[in-house]
């Protein structure tokens, strides 16, 4: 049974001074089953906002139709309906009504809403005096109290402090577990992976992928990397040494896998003999932050001509996904000889099943009679277990 059926919808916008109409969505179809959590990812301009607006009924499709079974609440820009001159309490009633709650329903839930938002002492202050964080928290608190069947979340998790975000995650998890259907549109890929059962990838107004969130996120990351502009590296003619080729080789020549060994080979071309040379390969998260780095360590003395640096990683701890790779060849003192940002993409395949950001190599033993303490342990098996 599907709560949301999106049936070949297209949306055309007329843009002034542009003769061609612009299709924000074209022939998009998908379904979301009852109790399912669907993530939608895509670059800016891929049609996510239009899709949300169509699902909410804010705008109608040019072609096709959306069928909803159940009450849908969109949680798009929480607090959009606040009136600055009204107090927090009055705004709860106004915003609740805008979101489709009845007066009685709000009266019944106001205590819980206030508690969730944590704005208690400021409830009787006009919201124009609130900080932006308080604004958002109050808005979110109202939204999650909707008796809704289908919940639409758009980038809401990007707001609030850490503690509030954690609370939102818990609440969304609760809603999901209680059988609500959820659509989450976000650039927060970790949230998509954590909360969704399935994901869609939108590109240029079309659904290009539909499936397992992890696979969709990887496809999206790869697409994003490919779309990145080449940082440009200028002429290599004057450089005394250039990085020529970077290759990765997993276990037995296979792909890179979490928990497996990985060999990384960097071929270089030195035009003259050089002393104190350091080779560094950096791996970056999709966010652009440095994930980890491998280095040749102490400066090496090289002769003129081609050569190769081989890095051996006995056990790859990086989580599955895509990492952009930078290569730097420098002097021990820090002088850069060659610098190749984002010159390659490392795809790490799922190896050991892990949750979190990286694989923690470990061993585990369960002993039936621990020394010292008299704790009773039910296990009779005394063998040493290696946890996977």
């Amino acid at each position, binding site marked *: 049974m599907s709560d949301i059926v999106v049936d070949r919808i297209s949306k055309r916008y007329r843009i002034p001074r542009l003769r061609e109409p612009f299709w924000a969505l074209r022939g998009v179809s998908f379904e979301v089953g009852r109790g399912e959590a669907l993530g939608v990812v895509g670059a800016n301009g891929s049609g996510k906002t239009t899709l949300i607006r169509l699902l909410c009924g804010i705008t109608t499709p040019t072609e096709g*139709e959306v069928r909803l079974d159940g*009450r849908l609440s969109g949680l798009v820009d929480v607090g959009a309906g606040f009136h600055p001159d009204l107090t927090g309490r*009055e705004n709860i009633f*106004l915003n609740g009504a805008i*979101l489709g709650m009845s007066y009685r329903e709000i009266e019944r839930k106001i205590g819980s809403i206030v508690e969730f938002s944590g704005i208690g002492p400021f409830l009787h202050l006009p919201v124009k005096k609130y900080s932006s964080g308080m604004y958002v928290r109050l808005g979110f608190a109202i939204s999650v109290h909707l*008796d809704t069947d289908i919940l639409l979340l758009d980038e809401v998790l990007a707001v609030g402090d850490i503690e509030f975000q954690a609370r939102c995650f818990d609440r969304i998890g609760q809603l999901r577990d209680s059988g609500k259907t959820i659509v989450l549109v976000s650039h927060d890929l970790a949230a998509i992976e954590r909360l969704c059962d399935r994901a869609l990838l939108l590109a240029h107004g079309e659904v290009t992928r539909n499936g397992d969130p992890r696979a969709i996120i990887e496809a999206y990351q790869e697409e994003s990397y490919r779309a990145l502009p080449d940082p440009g590296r200028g002429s290599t003619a004057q450089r005394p040494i250039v990085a020529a080729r970077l290759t990765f080789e997993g276990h037995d020549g296979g792909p890179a896998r979490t928990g497996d060994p990985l060999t990384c080979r960097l071929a270089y071309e030195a035009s003259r003999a050089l002393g104190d040379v350091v080779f560094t390969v950096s791996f970056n998260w999709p966010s652009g932050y440095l994930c980890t780095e491998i280095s040749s360590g102490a400066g090496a003395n090289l002769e003129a001509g081609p050569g190769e640096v081989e890095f051996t990683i006995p056990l790859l701890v990086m989580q599955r996904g895509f990492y952009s790779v930078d290569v730097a060849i420098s002097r021990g003192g820090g002088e850069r000889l060659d610098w190749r940002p984002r010159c390659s993409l490392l795809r790490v395949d799922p190896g050991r099943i892990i949750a979190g950001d990286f694989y923690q190599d470990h061993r585990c033993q369960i002993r039936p009679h621990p020394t010292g303490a008299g704790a009773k342990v039910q296990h009779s098996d005394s063998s040493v277990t290696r946890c996977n």
Partner: protein
Amino acid sequence: MTLPLTAPRPRTVIRPLRSPLDVLVEGARALLRYRSLVRAMTLTRLKVRYRQSLLGWLWAVLQPLALVVLYGAIFSHLATSRPTPYALFVFAGVVPWAFCATSISTATSGMLAHQHLIKQVYFPREIIPLSFVAASLFDLLFAMGVLLAAASYAGSTPSWALLGTLPILAILVLLVAAICLLISALQIGIRDISVALPLVLQVLMFTAPVVYPATIVPAWLQEFYWLNPLALLIEAFRSAVLDAATPRVGDLVYCAGLALVALTVSYLLFKRTETAFVDEA
């Protein structure tokens, strides 16, 4: 979440253009479902309007009174052939007129002020202009209380004819709602409307006997003059309040019919442009 399992799950279909009948039926149903919002938005208007002003609710009376003083000074030489003083005569016309003018101007600007919200959440958009009409209606009732007090002070005794103002006001509300929806819908495509509106309202005021007696309208114009439902309603309102005259049924039926047709047409037009508020605004 304490949703009982038996709660009916509404089915919604979002698709392009529907037939006018569907629009009306669905619209009425949605409005019923969102009645809490009508209430909340109307209360918001009232609270916000008077919250930060020193005189608060007195403004509901001060605004028409200012007009009374102004026009009283200008037109006091006009013979009204009435026993009541001219100021009271103007007051009785300005009270319903102020309702029209305030509704129309606040509803129109309110639509623009809520654009961000309109892009974020779905709710029946007509609630925005209608909440402004409802809020003005409160002002009207308040001002009417003062008007009745002034009338009895001036010597007219309250009579059953006052009940005649109920259908008059009901029809006036429908008519004003129709105008508000029409202008709200049109201003998406034509932004000049909001600029021209004060002028249009000024002109509109003089098409009805608000500040002058209808007797000064030239004879050749009289026939057309009374085609205007606003003129009929304001005149009937004044007669009911000051002269204890029951409104003519024929006039009421004419105005009510016109108001209903106007409301239907402008509602359909409004609903047609509803998505344009998001897509093009």
